[in-house]
């Protein structure tokens, strides 16, 4: 009994852009870091992402987006997490964002935004430092 707790991460692509190379690269990097990564493919609605995060009991949601639709989808995801009492799940974003959007996204609770050029090792290190698996439930 009592194995180490393994970090579980959802990598999701909200919205309509179908460019998931970045999402796959980051999923792979997390895999190689020893995390369990749930990957659900492109074209996810905020509702689908939150439902998956809850059913899979992930510690972290990584949102990959290149289309600019983060202004809608990111706040909606945060809203849904709150509605479902799941705001303890850390959310980060990766992709292309206008610089002036980044503070706004952080203000609604997105913990970090990784832009093009972010190093995989740095992202993995950020996760190790900032995301801890939650404690076991007690009957």
């Amino acid at each position, binding site marked *: 009994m009592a194995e180490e707790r393994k970090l579980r991460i959802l990598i999701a692509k909200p919205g309509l852009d179908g460019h998931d190379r970045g999402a796959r690269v980051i999923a792979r990097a997390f895999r190689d870091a020893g995390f369990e990564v749930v990957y659900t*493919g492109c074209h996810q609605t905020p509702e689908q992402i939150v439902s998956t995060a809850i*059913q899979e009991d992930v510690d972290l949601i990584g949102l990959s987006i290149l289309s600019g639709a983060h202004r809608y989808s990111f706040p909606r995801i945060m809203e849904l997490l709150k509605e479902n009492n799941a705001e303890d799940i850390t959310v980060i974003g990766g992709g292309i964002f206008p610089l002036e959007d980044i503070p706004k996204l952080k203000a609604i609770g997105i913990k970090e935004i990784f832009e093009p050029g972010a190093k995989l090792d740095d992202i993995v290190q950020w996760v190790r430092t900032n995301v801890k*698996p939650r404690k076991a*439930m007690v009957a």
Partner: protein
Amino acid sequence: MSIVNQILAGDVRAVARLLRDIDDQMPSAREILKELYPHTGKAYILGFTGSPGVGKSTLVDQIAMEYRKRGLTVGILAIDPTSPFTGGAILGDRIRMQRHFLDSGVFIRSLATRGHFGGLTKSTNDMITVLDAMGKDIIIVETVGVGQDEVDIANCAHTTVLVTIPGMGDEVQAIKAGIMEIGNIFVVNKADREGSRKTVRELRNLIELGLRRLGDQHWEPPIIETEALKGRGIPELLDAVEKHRQYLMENDRSQWEAVTQKRAKTQLLETLREEALAELLRRMANRGVSLDDLVRKVTARETDPYTVVQDLLQCELK
């Protein structure tokens, strides 16, 4: 509300968290499982197994949809491999199941093998207990993509569906001694591909030659051709599952008793093995016996594994 009551009421968050605690071997999860177990035994457990890429996830997606049409709720445990080098995993079975994400009648959980062999995870049976307790009518277990000998699903599911595709004819021959023995139902998926009829014929030949699950002589495994992507063959597959269920219930449920007893026995022995080993290691540690030392002695041929274990058992279990 207590966690047990939350689970029994079908609270998705509580269920999801308990599954994680079980997967991580948290002792507290055992206590909850104890309370849930009396509420289980109602769900029908359906296993899907086959090589990587034959279409298990897509079939599971379709079959879940068909069960939903028939008014039943579904729990899905989908297993993918853990990297033997890093311990990480990419769990991608959900990609094929997206249309169920918003249906509260379907609960999907992706699992990583975490070094467990046999096609399932160490925790699969305990997780079935939870999904059963939360009230799912049908529990579908999708094994990791298997080779020849990962047959744990046979002792786990009430009905095991073995999925293959055309063009694996030679392989069908090669693996008939292992995994081919566990199918209650055979599916030839991607049946629009060339060679589908030939694959069906070869399977039929195997079955006519007497390929049967041991103790299951009176059930002739049906062979269903499917095109999972298009939904072809799915109602037929479901009907075949239902027929197998009815078969298990025939003759005063004697087959059913056998299957459920085998399930219980597997679960009991698994738990015993795990707990006994953990307890033994704990006692060794308490006495200051170092596993590493023992390994060194065995490696150096100063002693052998058999003597070590014999001594340990005599010492720890008296």
